[in-house]
């Protein structure tokens, strides 16, 4: 099999193979990585997270399938899992599409490097598409590797024809691939036609907003859309517009139609999936073709120098000059670099998604709501995601080769640099989440409870910022990234466990403390003391720390230090 695949690959044109490999590697920004980075290992870790998710999904599916034995419950559970798996696949593909936003279109670098070479535009197009398809295909495969077999297997063992399993399996995999293709092609269509219609300069600016909007939309829809996976909800006329406008329900219907298990009265939903898929594929194909004919020329003709506005000069004070320099550098890197913007948007979208899903009821209510577990948990999680997310994004470098300027102008002790990083973390994560929580809490009463919770949240934000600064002796965005040093699997699952183990009990404790003033005072004092202790600890350690710009892998061999 291996030989056969290699033979097949060898039959492809050489220029296609070379370009495909280059474009595939661009999924990870190689310029941002440490020299000693292991890209394959890094991608393997991501695939590992998806495979682990798939195993969990399949376990839940297997247990639920046998636990919910009553016919109505059984049907609702099966439909719920089918919809959940399809919508989760769509979300992952949507996020990949947003992360590799412009990857399918030729950028200025491609045009300048490849135009003088005898490479046909269609080869570039095909290589780019093949690279994007390979990454998406890997994600679909990893995310469904276990659940994509268990679910069809369970559906296939139900009374019916002997080839039920094969039909379910084919229907499932066709559906997840079709749903992914629909999302991918829809994004390409919007991008392609926007780039054709608008001048390139305006398109590039608009593209950044479109990218963030797509991010918010995918996560917002995933978290906020109501669950309508039982016959009663599907038939309710009040839910018609939700079903008609939600692609995950169209493809859920498509799966059941292909599986032969779908009531005829809802076949209009499956028809929508077919139509949407056809339109998206046609739109993407035509916009891509037109782009490769027109946009490549436009890219070259675009002037090098684009006049800019004054920027943030009027707002340019965030403490002393070093803190201002680091804060402004962080803000500009976050807003102007696609990679950093997307990475931070991922966490922000999660923050909004969580808030939307947990506080949907309270926000829609006409009257004020009492301070609830939902408010406490959602705001705690928002703070967690925003601070931890920004800390992770700070680790992604920008223009590593330009770091020499920071090293030659390092005129202050390292504790000042740590203080500047702390200021940026507070400014860009803690303050915005606190303000958002403040806005959300306007719908809650009584006011003293809300005030105490906001104070707790502010202290929690400061504590999280201090925790993130432990060992983080670098200027944001300036240290090379070493995938593998931070074990993504370990961090991902560790974070989930800590959140479940900490957030729910903490929210329960706070809710009980809100009604007892003494308990509330103790809680605030304890948090204040913890923050103060962490601040002192970080300040003390920072005094002897060295600001570093290059991640170095941990020593595999540990010396005993016995030699003189």
């Amino acid at each position, binding site marked *: 099999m291996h030989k056969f695949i290699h033979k097949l690959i060898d039959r492809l044109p050489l220029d296609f193979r070379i370009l495909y490999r280059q474009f595939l590697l661009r999924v990870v920004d190689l310029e941002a990585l440490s020299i000693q980075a292991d890209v394959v290992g890094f991608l393997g870790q991501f695939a590992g997270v998806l495979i682990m998710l798939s195993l969990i999904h399949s376990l839940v599916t297997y247990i639920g399938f046998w636990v919910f034995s009553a016919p109505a419950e059984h049907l609702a559970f099966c439909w719920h899992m089918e919809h959940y798996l399809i919508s989760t696949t769509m979300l992952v593909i949507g996020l990949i599409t947003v992360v590799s936003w412009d990857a399918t279109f030729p950028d200025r670098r491609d045009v300048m490097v490849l135009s003088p070479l005898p490479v046909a535009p269609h080869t570039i197009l095909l290589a780019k598409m093949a690279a994007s398809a390979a990454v998406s295909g890997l994600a679909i495969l990893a995310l469904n590797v276990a659940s994509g077999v268990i679910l069809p297997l369970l559906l296939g063992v139900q009374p019916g024809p002997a080839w039920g399993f094969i039909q379910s399996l084919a229907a499932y995999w066709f559906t997840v691939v079709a749903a992914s293709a629909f999302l991918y092609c829809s994004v390409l269509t919007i991008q392609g036609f926007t780039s054709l219609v608008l001048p390139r300069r305006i398109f590039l600016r608009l593209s950044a907003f479109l990218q963030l909007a797509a991010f918010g939309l995918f996560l917002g829809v995933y978290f906020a859309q109501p669950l309508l996976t039982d016959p009663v909800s599907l038939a309710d006329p009040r839910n018609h517009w939700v079903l008609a406008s939600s692609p995950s329900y169209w493809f859920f219907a498509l799966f059941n139609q292909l599986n032969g298990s779908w009531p005829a009265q809802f076949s209009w939903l499956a028809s929508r999936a077919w139509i949407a898929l056809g339109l998206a594929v046609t739109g993407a194909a035509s916009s891509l073709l037109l782009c490769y004919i027109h946009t490549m020329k436009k890219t070259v003709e675009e*002037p*090098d*120098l*684009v*006049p*800019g*506005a*004054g*920027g943030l*000069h009027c707002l*340019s004070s965030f403490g002393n*000059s*070093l803190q*201002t*320099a680091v804060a*402004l*550098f962080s803000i*500009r*890197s976050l807003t*102007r*670099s696609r990679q950093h913007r997307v990475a931070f948007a991922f966490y922000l979208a999660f923050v909004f998604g969580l808030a939307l899903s947990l506080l949907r009821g309270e926000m829609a209510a006409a009257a004020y709501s009492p301070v609830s577990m939902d408010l406490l948990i959602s705001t705690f999680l928002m703070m967690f995601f925003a601070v931890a997310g920004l800390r992770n994004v700070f680790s992604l470098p*920008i*223009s590593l*080769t*330009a770091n*020499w*300027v*920071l*090293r*030659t*102008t*390092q*005129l*202050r*002790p390292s504790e000042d640099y740590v203080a500047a990083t702390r200021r940026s973390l507070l400014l860009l994560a803690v303050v915005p989440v606190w303000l958002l929580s403040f806005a959300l809490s306007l719908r809650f009463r009584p006011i003293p409870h809300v005030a105490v919770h906001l104070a707790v949240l502010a202290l929690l934000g400061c504590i999280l910022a201090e925790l993130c600064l432990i060992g983080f002796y670098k200027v944001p965005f300036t240290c090379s990234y070493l995938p593998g040093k931070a074990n993504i699997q370990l961090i991902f699952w560790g974070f989930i466990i800590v959140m479940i183990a900490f957030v729910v009990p903490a929210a329960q404790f706070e809710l009980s403390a809100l009604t007892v003033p003494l308990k509330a005072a103790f809680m605030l004092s304890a948090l204040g003391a913890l923050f103060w202790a962490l601040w002192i600890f970080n300040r003390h350690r920072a005094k002897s720390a060295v600001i570093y710009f290059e991640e170095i892998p941990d020593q595999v061999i540990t010396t005993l230090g016995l030699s003189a």
Partner: protein
Amino acid sequence: MLELRNVSKRFSGIPAVDDVSFSARPGEVTGYLGPNGSGKSTTMKMITGLIERSAGHILFEGKPIEGDLIAYKRHMGYVPEEPYLYTHLSGAEYLTMVAQLRDLPARQSGARVDGMLRLFSLHDDRHASISGYSKGMRQKVLLIAALMHNPQLILLDEPFSGLDVASSLVLRSLIQELAARGKVVLFSSHELDTVERICSRVVILHHGKLVADDSIERLRSLMELPTLEQIFSQLAVEQDTESMARQIADLIHA
């Protein structure tokens, strides 16, 4: 005065700079010459503190630079060989950031940056992203960043790279003017004609070793050669350049 004493740098055991000693004095422009890979930029990076040296000492004003690296960096301005900048910032933003990192008073640095942007003809494009700047414009940004704090020690690694004729002439005069005002200027370049015009002394490096350290006048008389180019060719160029050019043309033709 900047003084290098027996400075060496090895990369994985391979010497890039081998036992180099020389000094650059205030009021003089010291030319630092050598073919590609001779160790010029490595020396410059050791002087700036960007890379550690394997052996030897670097002294500024008679004190080892590592004694008080922060104070040393306050007095140093550096233009690197390659115009690596944060390209997502505009020219004005980059220079303001450097001024803030150098802890210059906002009003003073603002006036200086603005004035230098005007003098280097960058003022109209100061708010444009550096990613759109030409190589010459980037070089000008580097020069402004290196000089804005009025450094005592100026390290210039190929400062003329990408500059147009007018800007090159301005820079040539500027380097001489700065030296005349008592600055220590160490200037590395491949443009021997320019070096000959502005440098009082030259240090020539070949395969990481020092092969000449003297005034241009003395080198001329010692080696009985009329130009710096001929001196340099004799000391640091091993190949027969014409024969090599012929071989390349033959190879393309084959």
